[in-house]
C-alpha cells in the first residue's frame, strides 16, 4: 500500500526518469522512450519476484545515493546492447570508431552514462522533495542480474526502512536497444513529511 509520501516519491521518480530519458536521447542522438514504469513497496528478499526470473548476464552501472532518503540507482544493459550503445554514442558525439577506443575508455564512458542519468534522475528527486541528495561515482560491473541486485537489497534490508522499488524500461528506435533503470530507495517517512511541512510553512 502506498501512503502519501510514497506517492510523492513515485511522482517525483516518474518526472525524474523522464528527465533522465531526455538526457539519454541527447547523448544517443535518437529518441529514447519510457516503455514501462512500475513502482512497488516490497521486502528486499522478494525482489526477484518483481524483476522476474531474469538470470541473464548484464552490465550494471550502479550508484548509491544519500541524503534524507537513500538507496541505489542501477542502469542495466544487455551485454551486447551495451556495446551497441557505446558505438552509437562514440559515433554521434565524438565521431570515433569503437575499435579505436581502449577498454578503460569504454568503462569510463559507461560510468559517464551512469553519471548523466544519476545526475538528472537523483537531482530531480531531490528538487521535487526539497532536499539535497548526493550520489557516488557509478560502478560498472558485468554480472548476473540478481547477483548485482542482491547486495543492494541486503544493504537496504539492514536499515529496516520501507523499500520502494521502481522499475523502468526504456527503448529506442535503434533496433531492440533497451535500458533498464532500477531505483531502490528507502524512505524515512517522518523525515520526508517534516521536510515537506517545513517547506510549505516557509512559503
Amino acid at each position, binding site marked *: 500500500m502506498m501512503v502519501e509520501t510514497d506517492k510523492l516519491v513515485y511522482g517525483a521518480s516518474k518526472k525524474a526518469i523522464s528527465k533522465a530519458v531526455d538526457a539519454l536521447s541527447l547523448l544517443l542522438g535518437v529518441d529514447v522512450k519510457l516503455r514501462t514504469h512500475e513502482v512497488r513497496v516490497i521486502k528486499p528478499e522478494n525482489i*526477484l519476484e518483481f524483476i522476474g526470473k531474469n538470470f541473464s548476464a548484464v552490465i550494471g552501472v550502479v550508484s548509491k545515493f544519500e541524503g534524507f532518503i537513500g538507496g541505489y540507482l542501477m542502469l542495466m544493459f544487455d551485454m551486447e546492447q551495451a556495446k551497441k550503445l557505446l558505438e552509437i554514442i562514440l559515433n554521434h558525439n565524438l565521431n570515433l570508431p569503437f575499435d579505436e577506443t581502449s577498454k578503460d575508455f569504454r568503462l569510463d564512458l559507461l560510468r559517464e552514462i551512469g553519471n548523466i542519468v544519476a545526475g538528472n534522475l537523483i537531482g530531480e528527486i531531490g528538487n521535487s522533495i526539497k532536499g539535497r541528495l548526493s550520489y557516488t561515482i557509478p560502478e560498472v560491473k*558485468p554480472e548476473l542480474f540478481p547477483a*548485482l541486485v542482491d*547486495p543492494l537489497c*541486503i544493504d537496504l534490508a539492514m536499515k529496516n526502512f520501507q523499500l520502494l522499488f521502481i522499475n523502468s524500461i526504456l527503448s529506442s528506435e535503434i533496433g531492440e536497444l533497451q535500458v533498464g533503470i532500477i531505483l531502490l530507495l528507502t524512505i524515512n517517512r517522518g523525515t520526508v513529511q517534516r521536510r515537506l511541512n517545513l517547506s510549505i510553512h516557509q512559503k
Partner: protein
Amino acid sequence: MVGMAEYRIAHNPVNLSTWALGSCIAIILFDPYKKIGGLAHCMLPEPHGIVDSVGKYVVTAIPEMVKCFKKLGVQEKTLRAAIVGGASVLKMSFTSVSANDTLGGIGLRNIKKAKDVLHSLGIPIDVNETGGNRGRNLLFKPVTGEVLIAYVKKPDWL
C-alpha cells in the same frame, strides 16, 4: 531451484541449485551415505529482531536443515558441508553493522558466521568457494556429492 532466503532438502536423484549468489551465501549439507542433500540461500548472518524467515539467516537456516536431516534419520556426525558465495560484488555496498565490525562487508560476515555455526555443530566443510568479487551459480548433485559452480564471463570488449 532454491530462491533467496529459502532452503530445501532433496533426495537423490533430485538436484539442488541456486543462482546469482552475490553477497548471499549458499550452505550445502550432505549425507554421503543416504545421498540426501540440503541447500540454503542465506542473505544475512543473523536476525536483528524477529525471525521473519528461517532460510534468510545463517544462524537459523543451518540448525533448521540439521533438524530436517534428523527427521529423515540422518545423524549429525555423518553430515558434510559446502559453503559458496559471500562475494563483494560491488565495492560501494561494503557495509558494516557496527563500528567494531572489523570484517565489514556483508559477504564476509556471512562467510564467517557460516564457518562458526558449522564448526560449533562439528560439521566439516569440504568445499569452501567463497569471497572474491564475482557472482556465482551453483548446482549440487546429491547422487555424487558434486558441487558445480559457474561464473559470468566478462565481455572481451570491456
